């Protein structure tokens, strides 16, 4: 069983941190407007912002490591096998002949770390797109080319 590229932890961490930052700005902005109102406050000013920062920091530090820890994938003879999830552990078996088309994508953060995502599209409904994140970009492209051989012309 293969694991993801360890660098993906940093990407996730930065993403969680950025999200925390946005929420902090919103909540902080709200609290600043409250500074000028004369209402009696239940909690001291800045406590919500503090809470958001604390929870955000915890999530950003913890979740990427856990996510990474539980992510596994393997290319079997005729299936792509994925295992993931911290609270809800999910195993997915995608028969290779069911692949409709393949995408490799890379966002701005992933580009910095030279990582990529492999997106496997099937004709299914609920889990039609299976995403395999955190592959080295070259590897993702290689993987895609490898999988491409299996695309069959099965009629649906």
């Amino acid at each position, binding site marked *: 069983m293969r694991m993801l590229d360890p660098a993906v932890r940093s990407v996730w961490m930065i993403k969680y941190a950025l999200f925390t930052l946005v929420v902090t700005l919103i909540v902080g902005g709200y609290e600043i407007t409250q500074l000028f109102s004369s209402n009696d406050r239940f909690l001291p000013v800045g406590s919500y912002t503090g809470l958001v920062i604390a929870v955000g920091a915890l999530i950003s530090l913890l979740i990427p490591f856990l996510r990474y820890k539980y992510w596994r994938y393997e290319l079997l003879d005729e299936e792509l096998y994925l295992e993931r999830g911290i609270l809800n*552990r999910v195993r997915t078996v995608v*028969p290779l002949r069911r692949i409709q088309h393949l995408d490799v994508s890379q966002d701005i953060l992933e580009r910095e770390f030279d990582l990529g995502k492999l997106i496997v599209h*099937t*004709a299914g409904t609920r889990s039609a797109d299976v995403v395999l994140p955190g592959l080295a970009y070259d590897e993702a492209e290689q993987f895609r080319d490898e999988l491409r051989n299996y695309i069959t012309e099965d*009629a649906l």
Partner: protein
Amino acid sequence: MASLDDFSFPRSLHPLTLVQQFLRSLPALLILLAPTILRGSAGETRLTLTFAFMYAVVVVPLIIIRYLRFRYWIEDDEVVIHSGVFTRRKRNIPMDRIQNIEIQQPLLPRLMGMAQVRLDTAGSSSSEGQLEYVALEEAQAIRKIVREFQRAETRRKVSETVHSLSPHTPVSAADLMRGTINGTAESDAEDVQEEDEEERVLLFSMPSQRVLLMGAYRFSFLFIVLILSAVQYLQLDPEELADLLFRGPFRDAADVVAESPWLYGSMVVFTAAFLSWLTGIITTFVQYFGFHLWLDDDKLQRKHGLLTLQEGTIPLHRVQTLILRSNPLMEWRRWFRLELQTMGYDVDEQGYHVVVPFAQKDTIAELSPEIRPIQWPESFHSVSPITIRRHFIRYTVLLLIVVLPIAQFWSAAYWGLTLIPFLALFAWLHYLNHGYATDGNWLFIRRGVVRRYTFALPLDKMQVFMTSASIFQRRLGLKSLSVDTAGSRSVNYPEIVDVPEECAEVLLKELTHRFRHYFEMEEEPSKRNRLLTDAADVAAAQNTHGPLSWLHSRQRVDSSANDTVVHAEDKNGKDSAELAHPPDRHVEQ
């Protein structure tokens, strides 16, 4: 009947389309105007006039221009449609890509002898070409032309395959087998078949009494919408309405009822139930009146409707899932309804097609093998009984989330907690109605308490296999297993929730194994040797997981099996080649 030549130059729609479109735009105008007409003041009258003016200047010319701009014709191998007022659209639909031709006749066009033609192709969520409206004979002629083209195309492909059969040409075994086997079946049918309309076999039809009976088992809450919108748009005064309804002796009865809250409440519930039952009967009757289902070679055809006559075609090889539906009331009298899920192209029914709206279970069991070789299971394997506890806790938490906040303001809400025993009952019913079964190339999953679904998933249409275990499930050693199929999204999907971990794992392994095996058999018989080791692997895995005999009710892969055994154990004793092939016996177009 019109021939191909008639369609080779641009044609307009039926002229009466203008009348129909005009009539169809009237209700919108009336709804806009209704409030002001009924109780208009001076200011509102001006508004009314403005609307009417805009209508005359904008809507009516639009209808006319749209009609004038619309042209369609049939070229060598495609249907061409030019349309559009502001944005011109030129659309070419290759005939061999057309999957479904639907002819619909709503009431008014029907009276004028017109029909709507919809051309559906694969891969688009909405109808790709729509002719609104053409003469009925013309619609039928178009359908015939497209069908004949597709037949000829199929024949051509088959003969090409046969030509390429010379020993030096590299042809994959898969092509070869598919081509020859399906091809012969196809051309045999071709010789016999002259007129497709007459060759089709009637599979199922419903007399009017049956449609009424079906309605009696359904409840529709459409009447609430009707009443509310009537009150809203016509600005009726509810009290005036009540005075109008309750006069004379009814007045006294109404007063008595209004005295007691219990009587009042139960009267409301009773009336609502009665009205919804009545609406259920009416809507069902309107929708399913004169239901007919035919089998035409490799397609199902159905026709139904009282006001709007609907005709549709479902190519059998597009069928992804069979769904057997009922509710407790229906199930009590063994009534069921059969739906097919197809690759999503018919938007009207979100890819669901009702093929048998209402029939006894035996009838459906007899009829469904015409769609695919299937035998509905008599019994299902239960999931773990721990699921009762889990569902009870889940329902209770939900109830508390609703009740507790309300109770802060209105203490009577605590009475809601008396529902808790019923939640336990409901959780138990959920357990009783949830189960799965495997049989040859099929996986069956049953779920639902009030709306009951039995999904039948054929091996060759499965897409993705998944198991999942939440943090709570892991503590209890449970897992959920789901199989994804193509088709449309829906609220209810096939998933087996809360099976013991090792059962889920073995079931997953068994399914993926059978899946692989299915296609190996279809494609390359030379791979059979490899299969042997696979079969042994699975058998070994099963032995380590204990005696899971429930998995292999009929077609089990024995550790001592050679491939003949694996094949021959189909329940119907059908020959192995046929089993290994997808039941769609025809060439894909």
